[in-house]
């Protein structure tokens, strides 16, 4: 990779700049460099090279200082990130610590971040489902937000394009509400998951329990081997970074691919302060960066800019990019920038036991996590007293009971040998939330971070629709569990703050009308056509699928369009 000589303005000129190196930034980098553009990728955190920078990846549990448990001092110093399910001794080094990057919670919001090359693509839960037109048509049909300027047919070829490269395992389930993709073999449902799937199918006409589709190489194709990736080895230690490249991350896939083109310049430790707009030229000309280590301010220039800083930070950069033309933030003629922010409601769970299949268990580990229940509420028409719906995870495992009573030799024996317990089943809710003007991000007028960038203020909350939907989820799953013969059913509803779902989206939404949206159908800023936003910030609505796959497809599509527009001289 090029070593930067920042003294020369020539060395600060590129064809394209990509802000961010994670899930969507990695795709921008791959697509733009492959199409011949000299591309600068700016990452605010440190570099993380595939395999080389996964220090914990091959450690056994006993090789960790506290066998995986984080010290109390770390937990107490990080109340926010400590609430994340993956923040443990094996992966804590990939998470932003609370004090390092403060933000303002106008309302409670657990903002989970990964500031390093690869971003959160190292840490994601790897669930990948396509959207359908039942999702894209949601806002128009149900009268919220604004109409999506794209439909499934616009994105379908790009879903295929990114799926083939990333490697997605799944079954062709033939469901209109969850379109099939380009799949590697699925990870199978186990006995109880399969039993529940058959039960649900027999009881409900439009409810399905399918193998979760996930970004794991169950059986790699030549394109994956060419990336230097190999078959998933079922370790389920993905959050440490995978030495096999068994799951998709920017580090293992898109970034090394971009590097091989010779067109990539990656600059870690680069905090983007703002996008530079030239009033004379009537377009963006570059970005202003603060070196996170030296605090030096440097400007980089390019013909086209992709903003992939992750939803909240993309909004922050746009809001902070003020000029004579854009006094209220970049491309913000409409005044909607930062608004209509949304997330996924993950605040309900249900668990139970099942006495069937007493002679069977599973062997090895399932990286897909088990089953997935696509949204079945309000899909084909509005039928409930709430808008939209929820997808649900569903998984089962065979429990083992240990007798921990007593002391001495008998205790030792009991620890060595457990007794088979019942199968345990569980589900979690993944609910769509409705983007609203009152759920928004803004810049704090006074407080700045260590690099002189204003702190972001997050004002996002649940609403009554979320409560009604949660009630329905718990009722419906309880009913499905009960009729399946599951016992000891326990529902739980926590009050986790928005953000902990790590599916924050919106703020710079796509739309047909520049008066009510920031981006057009190609993810171009309506009023500055050489700036593209293709991360979560672009989302007009959020549906209930895990969003990364959609970000990838949107990014590849936008990059293709950007290069063709560049060639035509339109931008």
């Amino acid at each position, binding site marked *: 990779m090029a070593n930067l000589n920042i003294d020369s303005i020539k060395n600060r000129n590129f064809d394209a700049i990509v802000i961010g190196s994670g899930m969507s930034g990695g795709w921008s980098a791959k697509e733009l460099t492959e199409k011949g553009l000299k591309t600068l990728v700016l990452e605010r955190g440190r570099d993380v090279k595939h395999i080389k920078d996964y220090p914990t990846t*091959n450690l*056994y*549990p*006993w090789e960790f200082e*506290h*066998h*995986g*448990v*984080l*010290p*109390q*001092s770390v937990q*107490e110093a990080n109340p926010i990130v400590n609430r994340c399910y993956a923040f443990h001794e094996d992966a804590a080094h990939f998470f932003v610590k609370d004090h390092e990057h403060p933000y303002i919670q106008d309302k409670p919001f657990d903002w989970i971040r990964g500031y390093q090359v690869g971003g959160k693509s190292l840490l994601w839960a790897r669930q990948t489902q396509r959207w359908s037109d039942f999702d894209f048509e949601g806002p128009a049909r149900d009268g919220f937000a604004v109409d999506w300027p794209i439909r499934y047919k616009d994105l379908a070829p790009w879903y295929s394009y990114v799926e083939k490269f990333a490697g997605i395992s799944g079954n062709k389930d033939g469901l209109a509400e969850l379109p099939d993709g380009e799949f590697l073999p699925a*990870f*199978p*449902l*186990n*006995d109880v998951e*399969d039993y529940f799937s058959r039960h649900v199918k027999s009881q409900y006409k439009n409810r399905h329990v399918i193998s979760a589709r996930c970004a794991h190489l169950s059986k790699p194709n030549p394109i994956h081997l060419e990336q230097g990736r190999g078959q998933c*080895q*079922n*370790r389920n*230690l993905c959050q440490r970074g995978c030495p096999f490249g068994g799951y998709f991350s920017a580090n293992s896939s898109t970034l090394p691919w971009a590097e091989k083109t010779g067109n990539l310049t990656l600059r870690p430790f680069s905090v983007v302060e703002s996008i530079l707009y030239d009033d004379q030229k009537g377009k963006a000309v570059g970005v202003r960066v603060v070196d996170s280590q030296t605090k030096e301010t440097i400007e980089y220039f390019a013909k086209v800019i992709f903003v992939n800083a992750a939803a909240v930070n993309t909004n922050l950069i746009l809001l902070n990019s003020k000029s004579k033309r854009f006094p209220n933030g970049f491309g913000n003629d409409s005044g909607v920038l930062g608004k209509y922010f949304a997330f996924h409601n993950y605040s309900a769970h249900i668990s139970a036991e099942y006495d069937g299949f007493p*002679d*069977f*268990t*599973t*062997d*090895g*580990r*399932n*990286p897909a996590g088990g089953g997935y229940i696509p949204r079945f509420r309000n899909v084909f028409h509005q039928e409930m007293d709430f808008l939209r719906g929820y997808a649900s995870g569903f998984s089962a495992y*065979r429990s*083992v009971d240990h007798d*921990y*009573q*007593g*002391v*001495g*030799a008998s*205790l*030792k024996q009991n*620890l*060595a*040998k*457990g*007794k*088979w317990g019942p199968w345990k089943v569980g589900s979690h809710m993944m609910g769509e939330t409705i983007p609203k003007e009152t759920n928004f991000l803004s810049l704090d007028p006074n407080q700045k971070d260590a690099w002189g960038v204003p702190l972001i203020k997050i004002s996002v909350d649940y609403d009554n629709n979320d409560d009604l939907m949660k009630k329905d989820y718990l009722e419906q799953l309880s009913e499905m569990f009960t009729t399946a013969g599951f016992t000891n059913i326990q529902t739980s509803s926590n009050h986790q703050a928005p953000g902990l779902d790590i599916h924050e989206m919106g703020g710079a939404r796509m739309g047909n009308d520049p008066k009510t949206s920031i981006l057009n159908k190609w993810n171009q800023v309506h009023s500055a056509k050489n700036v593209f936003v293709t991360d979560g910030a672009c989302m007009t609505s959020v549906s209930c699928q895990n969003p990364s796959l959609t970000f990838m497809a949107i990014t590849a599509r936008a990059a293709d369009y950007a290069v063709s527009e560049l060639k035509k001289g339109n931008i």
Partner: protein
Amino acid sequence: MNRRSLIKNLVWLIGASAFAPSCLNSSNQKTIGLKNIALETDDQILISEICETLIPKTDTPGAKDLNLPEFVLKMLDETLPKSDQKNIILGLKDFKAFVLKKSGKSYTDLEPKEKEAILLELETKRNKPAAAEKPIPESPLSLFYSAIKSQTLFAYTTSQYFMTKVNIYELVPGRYKVHFPIKNLKTV
């Protein structure tokens, strides 16, 4: 505890390890440097003895063979909230008093069978309040014992010995099989 029994127990604590001579020569006995919880040498030895009673050396290694006491002390020191640590200190005092009242001796001077009996009595006592109608707040003594026990069990079941010789942990399973007969598994 007199000095003679202290040294005797210290040798017991560290076994025949290479550290023994230097420790024996020192008036500051071998202690684990703790940052957050004040446990003197004899307290550390006592906890080590409890660990060994819980997971004794049999035909397989015991707590001391596996250096579990050091890990337990480290976990008590570094992974517990302050309030738990306070209770452990209080409970430790109560534990010593309880043992003295029961046996007229200090725990470290008891025979292994007597040690087991003491811990079992605490454990039975602890199980009773749970059956009562109103949950009784756990005493520091009970909290002390359950903290030592749970940390010892965690230390043992996540030790290299346990995970390589007893219940084998696979870093790279390379498979996921469903509908797998339980009779085909060697260990449960």
